[in-house]
């Protein structure tokens, strides 16, 4: 159905593949993930091919993205955290490019699926826990014991802190997925109003003007959200990584 706002999120098998009873089909989600990686790689490789001392426009765009993420990471974790730069930058580029691909009409938005955002969030939290344990051994658990808390309520606080820590991948994934899902549904619903109203005749066409403007405005907003959510994911990742680097504050 044309006006079904959920239809755009359906997974379709493009090339059915089955190995040992497990479904490995190449779906539209896979296709757009491949496109995302290809897009991000093409942007960075092609734009830095010239390597001019005076950068071209494309090169300067690539340098700006690099500097932006490097600065974000450095501000939240210090120079020590720069070892995570490839990780954070890849996450940022993947989310940004996936979001932007999703802005094309009829395209599939990879980041509107919680499986994908969840996988990225779990990856982040595993890295935090893994690196934290490797670097600080048992000292990593200081993270859950705030200072200056009376001994009587300390067990409660520790449990709450642990729950709060465990809820991070959840909120990280929910935030990105909910933003993309809600934005795309809203856009589709408003755009659906335009066609539905316009098919009603002269008065309908007049009435369709308002949702048309709303659609245009929402499209602009969606571009903002696309970039913003990639940034939010990157900055939260670097803040969590900072916990792994410096658990005792």
């Amino acid at each position, binding site marked *: 159905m044309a006006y079904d706002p959920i239809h755009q999120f359906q997974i379709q098998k493009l090339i059915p593949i089955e190995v040992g009873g497990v479904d490995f089909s190449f779906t539209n989600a896979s296709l757009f993930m491949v496109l995302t990686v290809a897009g991000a790689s093409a942007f960075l490789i092609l734009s830095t091919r010239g390597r001019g001392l005076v950068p071209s426009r494309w090169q300067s765009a690539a340098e700006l993205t690099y500097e932006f993420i490097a600065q974000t990471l450095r501000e939240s974790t210090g120079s020590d955290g720069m070892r995570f730069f490839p990780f954070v930058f890849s996450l940022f580029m993947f989310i940004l490019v996936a979001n932007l691909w999703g802005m094309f009409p009829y395209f599939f938005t990879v980041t509107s699926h919680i499986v994908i955002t969840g996988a990225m969030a779990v990856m982040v939290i595993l890295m935090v826990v893994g690196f934290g344990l490797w670097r600080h051994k048992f000292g990593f658990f200081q993270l859950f014991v705030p200072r200056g808390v009376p001994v009587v309520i300390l067990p409660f606080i520790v449990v709450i802190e642990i*729950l709060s820590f465990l*809820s991070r991948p959840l*909120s990280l994934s929910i935030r990105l997925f909910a933003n993309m899902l809600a934005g795309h549904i809203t856009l589709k619903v408003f755009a659906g109003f335009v066609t539905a109203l316009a098919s009603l005749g002269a008065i309908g066409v007049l009435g369709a003007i308002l949702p048309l403007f709303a659609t245009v405005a929402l499209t602009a907003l969606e571009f903002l959200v696309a970039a913003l959510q990639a940034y939010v994911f990157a900055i939260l990742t670097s*803040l969590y990584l900072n916990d792994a680097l410096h658990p005792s504050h």
Partner: protein
Amino acid sequence: MDDRNAKPGPSVDRDDRELAERLHALERELDKGRAARDTEASRDAAPARPGMALGFRLAADFVAGVVLGAALGWGLDRLLGTSPWGLVVFLLLGFAAGILNAMRSAGLLKPGPPGPDDRPG
């Protein structure tokens, strides 16, 4: 633009030495910059964000705590057969964790351990 390429020719040796010296000078400058950057006080400046993004963020932080608490409690009940106590206790704890998350996101809890949105100090 003169430092773009070292010119080939008989003066390569001298150029190499000059280049090395310049590299060292640059290294020192960069080190100074790095040191300054690490002690920068501008870390507390929160980036400006539109209200809707902040709202989404607080909501996600809070909901995540509650959902995680409920899921953990339910799972424990299933495993240990303590229904409904695990759900009751962990839902409440999850609620507390959600509030903690949201307050940290909003920057209302500056001192204390770093949370989802705390800037290191």
